[in-house]
């Protein structure tokens, strides 16, 4: 399994450096929002938890065009289907590679941003929530990448498909992140987020496998 995962990760991070780009994109998008809203520190402190969640969703879209398209172009997907390893397991590995390349670095960047911009909202649960959210976004992103496989406007379509489906983790995650500022407990939204993440990360590899098989074998 290890050489398989290494290659999947290398396809995302080597040369194109998706992990670095994710952090850079995260910082750029957040700065763009701040330029749009204004740099008043106390105003920003209130909206920072929600802001980093929205930007986390945007940065999860970055790696999707690379996720399956390169494997489709050089017929690695054929080899996935013909492998004795079940296709859903390979899709789960793909999802892990995408999490490692985008969700993990972006979640760390987001946690640090909240620490710097809104210290009152910073807590250990915040980082856990952001990582769970990143996993959810990658799981949904996996579906977006599979659905748009072979389309000439894949990247745009992926954004249009993923963002509405990602509303629940976004709402629960941002709700949990902002809870300390409203003086309410983050337990309920955080557990809803965890439940969504577990279900999405379990189901997405199976759905993605079925979609990829359909795409590759459609005559």
């Amino acid at each position: 399994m290890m050489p398989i995962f290494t290659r999947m990760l290398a396809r995302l991070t080597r040369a194109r450096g998706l992990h670095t780009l994710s952090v850079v994109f995260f910082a750029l998008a957040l700065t763009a929002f701040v330029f749009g809203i204004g740099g008043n520190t106390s105003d920003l402190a209130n909206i920072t938890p929600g802001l980093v969640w929205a930007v986390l969703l945007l940065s999860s879209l970055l790696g999707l065009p690379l996720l399956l398209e390169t494997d489709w172009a050089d017929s690695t997907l054929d080899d996935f289907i013909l492998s004795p390893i079940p296709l859903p397991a390979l899709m789960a590995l793909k999802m892990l590679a995408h999490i490692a390349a985008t969700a993990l670095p972006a979640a760390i960047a987001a946690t640090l941003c909240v620490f710097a911009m809104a210290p009152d909202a910073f807590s250990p649960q915040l980082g856990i929530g952001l990582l769970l959210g990143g996993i959810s976004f990658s799981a949904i992103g996996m579906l977006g990448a599979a659905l748009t496989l072979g389309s000439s406007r894949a990247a745009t379509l992926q954004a249009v498909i993923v963002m509405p489906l990602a509303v629940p983790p976004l709402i629960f995650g941002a709700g949990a992140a902002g809870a300390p500022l409203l003086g309410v407990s983050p337990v309920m939204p955080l557990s809803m987020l965890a439940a969504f993440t577990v279900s999405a990360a379990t189901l997405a590899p199976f759905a993605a496998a079925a979609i990829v098989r359909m795409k590759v074998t459609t005559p």
Partner: protein
Amino acid sequence: MLMLENLTIARAGAIMALNVTRTVKAGTVLVLKGPNGSGKTSFLRGLAGLLKPEAGALTNAPSFHWLSAQPIPPSLETPREYLAFHAALMGGQAGASPFGINAILDTPFNRLSTGQRQRVKLSRLMVSDRKLWLLDEPSDGLDAAGLETLLTLIASHTDNGGIAVIATHQPHLWPHAETMQFGAGAA
């Protein structure tokens, strides 16, 4: 042995091979010939189970290797990583290659020529022992020495009871092979 019974393969609604009934015995090289777009690749994909036949069936199919015509992209990946990946995927072991790639095992693909990358791709045939080889344009980009190695490899494979089904634009490379014509002139 590989048996095709009334196999009909279509691509994008167009029939590429109609009611093919054929027995391919052990030790056979079967060459698929025909112009571009005549359905050789679709037929191979049908044999590999990557394309559902419109009708008919494929029986007694042994375990197989499928090598598509897609070249290895000129990325930063090295042949060693590539072969380790495919070995893991096929549940085999990356072994010695007859294609003389030992010297370039750690040179990234973006510094290798088309022919060298083709040699690495063909080396996948060594990662596990499979009775049936489905090869799409295996001779693409190979030099004379590489071609010689390929022909010897396929000959020893069929001598040991293996089967090779080859889609190619160079059918003259296998003068003694059984052939199947696609497109104009097909039976």
